[in-house]
């Protein structure tokens, strides 16, 4: 009965001050949305980042550090220090313990996007996210020497479609003056967006990469010696070297043993890295930034809670008359103090509810835009236990801060003179 009375009194009091409290509630809602949003984005970005490549057990390249190898093969950042010989790739391919290999050859570009020379195994075996395969949004995977498949981001940004002809550039860089004009490539397909660096590259066959460099031995095209579509017909182009290879192993228990063997390969110095291990190390490096971000958001929530106390204390000064009336009608000091706590916690709960609604609406509206503009795949999912914990901490903190006005009111109302009688 007493609880019921306290609740109805508190709600009536909240309704009475709705204009001022709506503003307080808005501030609190915004800061809770920010806190929850940052935590949510942090886990989603981590998930999206650490699953940029999945299902690949080893990446094999020329001897280098694991982060360097990961960055240039998976993220298209930086350049390879050396290549690996085609014969080495063949030797690895003949090892029955390695189930599949995806060859990768880098070095050229198309209007600032990397050209990745590979084969059909890329489409067949490359996985990202939670074991998601690549798929073509339109067209087919390349089959001819001068066929090219575009990543979703390239097709979107440059507005290309299947059937168009592209001239790839020699070397990297956004504006290249040295273009493979004699060997235009035809777009045969466009990949589905993945939210990974796969979207930001164009894919050709190893033969295409080799063919377009015929006559370029001196670094520039020698007229008359370069390949043309007609000359390339029926010819077999075998590369001398590739940049790296993605490797899949069915018996995962052998991963470390195979890594060691490849690292000790007698033919040439190689590095085999575990992409998952390299990704987790890279994320650990960046972990400091995300923790700092969460810390700052925590302070935003604390600031709005302090704002809430300020408002409550201001209101308290104006409530002297109301409290006197409540006391005169028989309300105990404890009941009056509990009013503050109930009001404060209700406001916090309302703010949390609103923040959840804003967050859910925001993510569902912004996720297509984030994928297309930033390549970030953020999906709506149920909150995790730590996120619920973070959310629950807001009403708990609100209950704690409400103790300040509650205790002082309790003390004041006791001195009003009817304390003892009302308590009995």
């Amino acid at each position, binding site marked *: 009965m007493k609880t019921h009375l306290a609740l109805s009194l508190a709600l009536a009091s909240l309704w009475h001050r709705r204009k001022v409290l709506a503003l307080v509630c808005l501030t609190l809602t915004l800061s809770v949305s920010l806190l929850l949003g940052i935590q949510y984005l942090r886990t989603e970005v981590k998930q999206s980042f650490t699953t940029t490549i999945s299902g690949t057990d080893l990446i094999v390249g020329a001897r280098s550090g694991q982060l360097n190898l990961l960055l240039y093969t998976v993220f298209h950042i930086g350049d390879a220090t050396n290549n690996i010989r085609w014969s080495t790739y063949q030797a690895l391919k003949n090892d029955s313990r390695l189930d599949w290999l995806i060859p990768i050859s880098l070095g050229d570009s198309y209007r600032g996007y990397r050209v990745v020379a590979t084969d059909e195994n890329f489409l067949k075996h490359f996985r990202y996210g939670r074991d998601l395969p690549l798929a073509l949004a339109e067209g087919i995977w390349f089959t001819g020497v001068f066929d090219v498949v575009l990543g979703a981001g390239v097709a979107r940004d440059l507005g290309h479609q299947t059937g168009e002809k592209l001239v790839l550039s020699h070397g990297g860089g956004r504006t290249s003056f040295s273009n493979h004009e004699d060997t235009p490539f035809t777009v045969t397909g466009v990949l589905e967006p993945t939210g990974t660096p796969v979207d930001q590259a164009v894919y050709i066959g190893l033969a295409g990469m080799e063919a377009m460099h015929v006559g370029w031995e001196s670094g520039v095209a020698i007229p008359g010696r370069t390949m043309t579509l007609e000359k390339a017909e029926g010819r077999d182009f075998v590369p001398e070297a590739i940049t790296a290879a993605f490797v899949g192993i069915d018996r995962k228990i052998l991963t470390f043993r195979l890594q060691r063997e490849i690292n000790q390969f007698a033919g040439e110095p190689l590095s085999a890295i575990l992409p998952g291990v390299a990704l987790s190390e890279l994320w650990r490096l960046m972990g400091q930034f995300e923790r700092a971000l969460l810390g700052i958001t925590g302070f935003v929530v604390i600031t709005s809670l302090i704002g809430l106390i300020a408002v409550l204390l201001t209101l308290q000064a104006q409530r002297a008359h109301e409290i006197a009336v409540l006391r005169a009608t028989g309300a105990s000091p404890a009941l009056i103090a509990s009013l503050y706590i109930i009001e404060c916690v209700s406001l916090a709960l309302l703010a949390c509810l609103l923040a959840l609604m804003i967050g859910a609406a925001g993510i569902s509206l912004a996720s297509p835009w984030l994928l297309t503009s930033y*390549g970030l795949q953020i999906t709506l999912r149920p909150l995790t236990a730590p996120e619920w914990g973070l959310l629950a901490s807001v009403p708990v903190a609100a209950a704690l801060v409400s103790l300040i006005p509650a205790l002082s009111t309790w003390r004041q109302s006791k001195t009003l003179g009817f304390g003892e009688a009302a308590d009995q």
Partner: protein
Amino acid sequence: MTSNKLPAQILAAATILTAAPLSANASDNPGTHQHGHAELQVAISNNQVDLIFTSPAYNLLGFEHEARTGEQEASVKETIAWLRTTPLVNTPESSCRIQDADVHYEANTGDDDHRDQGHDHDEKPARHSDIEVSQSLTCSGLEGSNELTTPLTIRFPGLEHLSLEWVWPEGQGSGRLAQGESLFKLTTH
């Protein structure tokens, strides 16, 4: 190019900040050797565990030269026996049994003319030496659990950091244990 610009910048910054470690066991380069630091690689499939542990001998024995006193000889024998008979990773319930274990240790004899790399040893300049252990284990109750322990960081006070790398059905991951910490959680990343 608008997409991936932001992560690209962060990654570029990260590469500048990182001194990427070169992998050990090169076919033509000498392997890395860092006192106080060791590496444990664990591959898990069903209830099978395959592990490789590599450490400078100094971390486990306190010296890297050939055993010269009876005490040192006993210490080498005892350590190698321990490495051969103790599962280097275990479930919290200690359910792992060794199927196969191999300890590789070649103490340097000290008469090699190889120059020591600035370490402060009292004996003649000598090569570094490593201990490499590989074990195959069977652990019941491994499926469905993601917690493992290792006795290494408790058994060897000279081991300041143990780098962990693992491959398990959920994916690959890595971690690091400090001296005295024995429990680690397998996470995907």
